[in-house]
């Protein structure tokens, strides 16, 4: 059964930083969908090129928020969060999807209220899934972890080996 994951900007950018955006196309049964608002937030030319390539290759899919329920929630969420975040959360909450987002604090609190903690994935959750499906090794994932630390994204464990075992 396909599991739809609405994907926020920060997760996409993290995967672009480590050059592994195509991983999203390999993590079955997950299907990664990206609202137009999120696509619009990625403007750096090299990041944009990687994103376009992933769209063309079908690793990620565009999604439109257009149900009345989702639009209403989108409007409410816009008071406290950015367009991309509001679009992801409105869709996940009204369509029963998962969400991939590294946002903390306000966003995470609201996301837990709306969809529950178990439906929120982070960059490390996706890398862990990739390890379990043997798309990447623990050593590679640990290198990615270090790369992301240089981009000011830190994970709260010392090695992916701690999570796998």
């Amino acid at each position: 059964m396909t599991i739809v994951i609405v994907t926020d900007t920060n997760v996409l950018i993290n995967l672009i930083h480590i050059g592994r955006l195509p991983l999203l196309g390999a993590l079955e049964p997950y299907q990664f969908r990206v609202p137009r608002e999120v696509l619009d937030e990625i403007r750096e030319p090299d990041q944009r090129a990687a994103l376009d390539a992933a769209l063309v290759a079908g690793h990620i899919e565009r999604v439109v928020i257009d149900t009345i329920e989702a639009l209403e929630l989108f409007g409410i969420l816009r008071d406290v969060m950015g367009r991309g975040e509001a679009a992801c959360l409105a869709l996940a909450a009204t369509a029963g999807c998962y969400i991939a987002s590294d946002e903390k604090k306000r966003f995470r609190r609201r996301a837990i209220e709306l969809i529950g903690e178990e439906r929120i994935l982070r960059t490390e959750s996706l890398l862990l899934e990739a390890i379990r499906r043997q798309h990447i090794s623990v050593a590679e994932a640990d290198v990615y972890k270090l790369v992301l630390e240089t981009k000011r994204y830190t994970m709260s464990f010392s090695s992916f080996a701690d999570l796998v075992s």
Partner: protein
Amino acid sequence: MLLTKEELGRRIRSARERCGLTQEQLGEPAGLGRLAVGQIEAGTRSVSSIELDRIAYAVGRDIKSFFAEAFAEQDALTALFRSDGGLAEQTELLRALQDSLALGREMTNLERLLAIDRAQLPTAAYELRAPNTRWDAIQQGQKIAAEERQRLGLGIAPVGELGELLESQGVRAAMVSLPANISGLTLSDDTIGVFVVVSAAHPELRRRFSLAHEYAHVLLDRDRSGAISRAENRSDLLEVRANAFAAEFLMPMDGVIQFVQALGKGAASRAQMAVFDEAEAVQVEQRAAPGSQEIQLYDVALLAHHFGASRISALYRLKNLRFVDERDFHRLKSQEEAGAGKSIAEFLAAPELSGGQSTREDFRRRFLGLALEAYRREEITQSKFSELAAMVGMRREEVRVALRSAKLD
């Protein structure tokens, strides 16, 4: 109860029509053709979140307003459209209004998130009959300015930071790009509060005058919900009244008189007095030294500097208060226009702008301050903070640096 697609479409159409926009005009910023807009309004086509966001911006609303239990057909923008039928054709002005409303709404939202009660900042209002003549309009404007100064405890002192003063009176003041013929505008409704906007293109002192002018509309014409101050309407009685208010508010008559007297000027060149001792009168005559009472350009520069006004408006004020006659006024005006005023002001270290911060800074400071606080209290996300900062011209990198400096990243 969940809205139907048809009802959402009806509300979009109602908001569009009340703004006097055609389906093409609404569709353009939303990236939609006339046909698509027609289908959305008829409820036969879905509208996406991005399209609805842009539609809401175009009609000066936020998305939530379309889903409210009771849809408010009337708002600040529709009030302006009602008073100015050709607004939809003035693209630049329309854009400025849309930007202003978006800023006003976000400011209201930040205050709500931070539990700031604007009801504690009630804005004064004066009820006056409409002026009948220009003279009447001037008298009304001057009278209300004097009363407002008294109410604010300003006495005859210079006003200082006008943006801050307005804020303390429950009036938001911002600066956006306006068409060349528009100096400012006033908007007022429940979602944005009382909001005055002045032109970013005008020099600081002109903006200061415009702020005072718009403040007059806030105090006197708030029942109109919105007012646009256009150069071509400066002879309209309400505009004359607002200008008279601004002049008196920024340079109060008694303050100007005292300032001029402190320069040892402004007295008549020949004064006569009779001292009566119940039997006979003794005539006393005092003659000032020839030319000693004449106002010079450096006096104008000092007066302008003192009150934070332009030299030219100070000169007009002196003329209206009869400190200079028509001949001297033209002499001084020609000197000013030839650049002499600027040179003298520089020599006196009395530049026109007496240390005032710009209106943009006033508004931006408060807006960003509230946004930072909302972010620190985890009321908004970082992405929302970045969007808000972008609305007042901050770049992404500046936002990153600011958050890092505030230890909020």
